[in-house]
């Protein structure tokens, strides 16, 4: 029995802007099993949101899929007709929680109407014989919105940031999705609210058994929620491994450095800084994208692009000298 929900094969995406070409994603290979939470971490511009959008088929018009395939439950979603994809998958089998809850609800319609629309057009069969109003109240209550009946009759501006995110979670889970893409869902929230939402999400994962791609820049959040972690750098997934190994035994110099950038409990040590800046996606360095900033870099790194190396502990890393990583720790 194939448990694979999603398989991304050699995905390459290019953005065109004023005759410049930006390599947003290059050679991405990922797969996701049922009920698995994949954390995608990386700094801004590393291509993590582009990945989410490409699976939703919501890439902006200037983006082109140059190469590669995305298989969802064995079907190549790049080749499905848009009308069919929209009717059967987007917002139904594959749902999305955007980064900014403030801009994601329509300000001129009541929250109830927006949620009920989704139930009506995307999740009818889940609520056979049930009243749509009742279904909406049920899901909102489940997401921890008190007094749901009354709140359905309110407008988005009457909701706080955390509550809006709960509404968006209702919309994402009401269809009982196979795959949920969460793009920095807690970045705009305060820590105590963030903790509430993460707790809620953890409960929902258990209940719905949905697979989740959790995109974030926060290593702390990933270390709490993900089963497996993919680290992105300048459009490439440079290391993929389960959570324990990625954080305890990183095998890519970038992952190692990123973990050391975190302020720890001790005030005495200086924070590690990765020298230089993220490369320009329209003018990437030769060889390995990370070599100009890498302390392990050798001649080979400047000339050849590393492929993904299989690691003994089940992960993959895109570094020629991964065996040396951690030696200077």
């Amino acid at each position, binding site marked *: 029995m194939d448990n694979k929900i999603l398989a991304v094969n050699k995905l390459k995406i290019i953005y065109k802007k004023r005759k410049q070409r930006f390599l947003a994603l290059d050679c991405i290979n990922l797969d996701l099993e049922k009920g698995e939470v994949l954390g995608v971490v990386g700094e801004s511009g590393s291509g993590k949101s582009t990945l989410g959008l490409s699976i939703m088929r919501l890439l902006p018009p200037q983006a082109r899929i140059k190469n590669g395939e995305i298989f969802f439950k064995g079907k190549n979603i790049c080749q499905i007709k848009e009308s069919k994809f929209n009717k059967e998958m987007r917002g139904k089998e594959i749902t999305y929680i955007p980064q900014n809850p403030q801009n994601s609800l329509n300000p001129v319609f009541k929250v109830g109407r927006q949620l009920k629309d989704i139930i009506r057009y995307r999740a009818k069969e889940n609520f056979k014989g049930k009243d749509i109003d009742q279904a909406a109240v049920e899901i909102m209550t489940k997401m921890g919105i008190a007094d749901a009946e009354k709140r359905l009759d309110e407008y988005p501006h009457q909701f706080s940031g955390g509550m809006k995110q709960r509404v968006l979670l209702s919309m994402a889970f009401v269809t009982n999705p196979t795959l949920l893409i969460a793009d920095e869902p807690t970045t705009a929230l305060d820590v*105590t*609210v963030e*903790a509430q939402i993460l707790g809620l999400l*953890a409960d929902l994962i258990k209940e719905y058994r949905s697979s989740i791609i959790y995109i974030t820049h926060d290593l702390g959040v990933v270390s*709490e929620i993900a089963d497996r972690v993919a680290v992105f750098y300048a459009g490439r997934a440079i290391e993929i491994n389960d959570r324990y190994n990625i954080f*305890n035994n990183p095998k890519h110099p970038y992952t190692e450095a990123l973990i050391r950038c975190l*302020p720890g409990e001790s005030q005495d040590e*200086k924070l590690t*800084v990765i020298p230089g800046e993220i490369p320009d996606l329209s003018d990437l360095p030769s060889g390995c994208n990370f070599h100009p900033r890498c302390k392990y870099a050798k001649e080979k790194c400047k000339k050849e692009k590393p492929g993904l190396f299989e690691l003994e502990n089940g992960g993959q890393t895109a570094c020629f000298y991964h065996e040396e990583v951690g030696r200077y720790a």
Partner: protein
Amino acid sequence: MNIIEVRDLKKYFYKKSGLLYKLFGLGPQIIQAVSQVSFNIEKGNTMALVGESGCGKTTVARLVLKLIEKEAGQIYFKGKALDEMTEEEFRDYRENAAFIAQDFRSSLNPRKLVGEILAEPFRIHPGVIDKSKEEERIKEIVNLVGLNEEALLKFPHEFSGGQARRIGVARALMLNPEFIVCDEPTSGLDLSISAAIINLMRDLKKEFDLTYLWISHNLNVVRYISDFVGVMYLGRIIEIGETQDVFNNPSHPYSEALIESVPSFSRQKKKVQRKTLEGEVPSPIDPPPGCPFHPRCKYSQAKCKEVIPELKTRNSERLVACHFPL
């Protein structure tokens, strides 16, 4: 020696009343942004204020620099109240107290070259540095914060977020201040860049013997950089003390919950699920009676609903505003 001393600071904002309010003869709504805030910062220390958005930490920062007028209370700079200063003394205060703004993009004038932006402090405070030495000083500081001298001939939009931050830091250092208010200096930056800025701020502090008031909602950063920390909730400081002490052993239920909520970087094999605080921050227009935190507090008792707890000494270095401290 206390560089800054703040006593019972209070700030209200008035929400403009709409037509309905006027028709019914109701006055403007009062937002209690800051109430009863007191703290002092000794020379060479970093004092951090933490709290969720809307708790009044940025308002405190602006009040301390007198960028906005306070409602009541007193602010002392080296023992002298800002209200009692002569114009000249106040100029001296402004020279010595610099500000690094939260929004690093909009705090740099997009129509000016970085060199012009950095020379501006000299225009406003002539005579601090000899005119002939201005250029030298600018170059020195620019190098110090890790930028090239070429940066002086560029416009702010040509810089990345981390570099723009460095320009903000350079501007703050121009007049050789003793005290810098840093309002969320690392928010919106990527992890590795944020680490670089934190290291820079630490080095500068050592080199120039600076004193910081550090405003942040990022508890990991605060724990790393500050000597003392004040936790704010709904305009009040609810706990204040030595950073490591407060983090290891919070006395106020809110501090405990806040520290608990931070997604801690875990290397455990098993997923951890944290206890979370229920509810959200109430509106400062209509704060709950008694302790502002009582509706969310799991330890709250009858007294908490009626009496506002005062900030009391708990032990040597710690002040807590709770009737039943942990």
